[in-house]
């Protein structure tokens, strides 16, 4: 089976400037990332702020141009940004952002917003479009009488449903969601997560789900990639990765999630600050915060390599012994 989305060696470098008088310094936000998303599969991307996960999400859609590497969608290379071919491709891949209020136009009714992609991509006539809007609203759990409402008249969860309905309008094969539930309350978050689960099940729709919330990612994703300072440090099937993390960073991330019933002591609390992409440590970027770090970690960048049949990790100590020693 061919992958729906295949990214190879993606690189994105920003020129960051520190303050008004600062020198410009290159910041490698995404630094050689390769990944595949199969049809119908959901890939989770987790990491802290500064890990480059949101930049990666935009690069997968071609919104942020890559300085290096390639993205292939449906077996063919991604067309140049803002070309007619790229715009046409947008019908097949859509994005959902964290803040639905910012993503919606306050002057348009929600029906008009959901209809917009149909008009842009010239799908159906007026009657067909109206029918499709009704269908989409029902699919995401919005009531028909809400069609004439404006974004500010809806709750946060309902707005995110509108954004999702709009993203689904053109029948995309790929949905890239960047922190779609982070701004929502617990009870509403569950509603939207369940909605996304239903969307996975019906039809062979692929999804890239970017989030810092490990619980939601585990619940929703088939495979998970963990990012640290612009690189994937571990990747594997969701259940395996959470049950048996091989990279010390993944272990620390999982351990840091507070769960009712799990006591505070005995957790691995990662010391040090979240990494600054402008000051990338030598060797393994994680080594200053890593309890297992040795000389080789300070000097040599670890490659992603197979640790288990379906799992890869970029760690010099990611063999079975190190994992059990730290556990």
């Amino acid at each position, binding site marked *: 089976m061919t992958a729906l989305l295949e990214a190879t060696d993606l690189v994105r470098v920003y020129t960051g400037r*520190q*303050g*008004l*008088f*600062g020198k410009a310094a290159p910041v490698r936000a995404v630094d050689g990332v390769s990944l595949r998303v199969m049809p119908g599969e959901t890939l989770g991307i987790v990491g802290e702020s500064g890990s480059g996960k949101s930049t990666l999400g935009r690069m997968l859609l071609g919104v942020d141009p890559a300085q290096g590497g390639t993205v292939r969608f449906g077996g063919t290379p991604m067309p140049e940004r803002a070309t007619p071919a790229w715009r046409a491709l947008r019908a097949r891949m859509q994005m959902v952002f964290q803040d639905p209020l910012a993503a919606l136009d306050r002057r348009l009714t929600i029906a008009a917003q959901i209809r917009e992609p149909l008009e842009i991509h010239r799908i159906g006539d007026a009657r067909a479009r109206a029918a499709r809007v009704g269908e989409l609203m029902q699919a995401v759990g919005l009531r028909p009488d809400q069609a004439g409402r404006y974004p500010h008249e809806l709750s946060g969860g309902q707005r995110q449903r509108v954004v999702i309905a709009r993203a689904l309008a053109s029948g995309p094969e790929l949905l890239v969601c960047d922190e779609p539930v982070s701004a929502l309350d617990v009870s509403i978050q569950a509603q939207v997560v369940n909605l996304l689960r239903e969307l996975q099940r019906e039809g062979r729709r692929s999804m890239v789900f970017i989030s810092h919330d490990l619980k939601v990612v585990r619940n929703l994703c088939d495979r998970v990639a963990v990012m640290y300072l612009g690189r994937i440090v571990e990747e594997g099937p969701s259940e395996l990765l959470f049950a048996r993390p091989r990279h010390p960073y993944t272990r620390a991330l999982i351990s840091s999630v507070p769960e009712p019933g799990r006591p505070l002591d005995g957790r691995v609390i990662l010391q040090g600050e979240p990494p600054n992409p402008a000051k990338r440590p030598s060797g393994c970027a994680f080594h200053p915060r890593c309890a297992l770090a040795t000389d080789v970690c300070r000097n040599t960048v670890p490659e992603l390599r197979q640790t288990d049949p379906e799992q890869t990790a970029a760690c010099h100590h990611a063999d079975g012994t190190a994992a059990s020693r730290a556990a």
Partner: protein
Amino acid sequence: MIRFVTIRLLRAVITVLAVMTFAFVVLRMSGDPAEVLLGPDVPQTVIDAFRKQWGLDAPLWQQYLSYIGAIFSGDFGLSMRDRSPAIQLVMERVPATLQLTIPALLLKLGIGIPAGVYAALHRDSAVDRGVIFLAILGFTIPSFVMGLVLVLIFAVTLGVLPSGGFGSWQHAILPAITISIGGIGILARFSRSAMTEVLGQPYIRTASAKGVKWRDVVRGHALPNAAVPIVTIVGFMVGSLIAGAVVVETIFSWPGIGRLLIVSVSNRDLAVVQCILLLIAAVMVVSNLIVDLLYGWLDPRLRA
């Protein structure tokens, strides 16, 4: 820091050059000084001689190059009317204009900022609404209307102040107030919105939660933050110290730069007009430069 200042200075020089070029081209396209100065019934030979004498017969680009060259050697040209140096004519008038604009600036700062800050601290009160109303009135009424209204009230009806002319400090009161009113309105509005935004920031609540007295929260925590946007506007006002009085000087027959500009434009006295525009641009650019440097001083986030 040095890099930053160098870039800003370069940009300032380019801005001034652009203004000079624009003024030069527009002035030469919009009428012939020979015809204006000499009158309509002069023989062609006289006009030609005049043109030759002032270098107006050369191609435009040659005139432009020699003009720029002269500026850089400190020669601002001669007035076509009495052949006195243009720079001297202009500088003679500067003190008169500043006698109006500096008191006006002080009025703007002294009334506009406190009124805006007070209104922000008493949001939705009667005083707040009054300040907003007066501010809008202040900057929507054109200065020539405002000037005439003030003359009607204080000179004609009450007879307490002169209606125009130059001489004593009483003569400066009405024109200075006229100039200041728009600026007071703008500053009041601006200070109010800057202060309102700052007062809604989480760090204000932090300061209160820390037990800081409200008066000190306003003084020590809110005002320093609100200063950044206010300084932008004040910088603009300082920049218009020279140019801001053109209309008002005309109304009140005040012998400042503004009057000189009007007279020189209608006479097509090229050197003088160019010299005034250069001065206006230079003052504006310098005040912008100062504002940029102030930003860094006021807001550490804009420093490195």
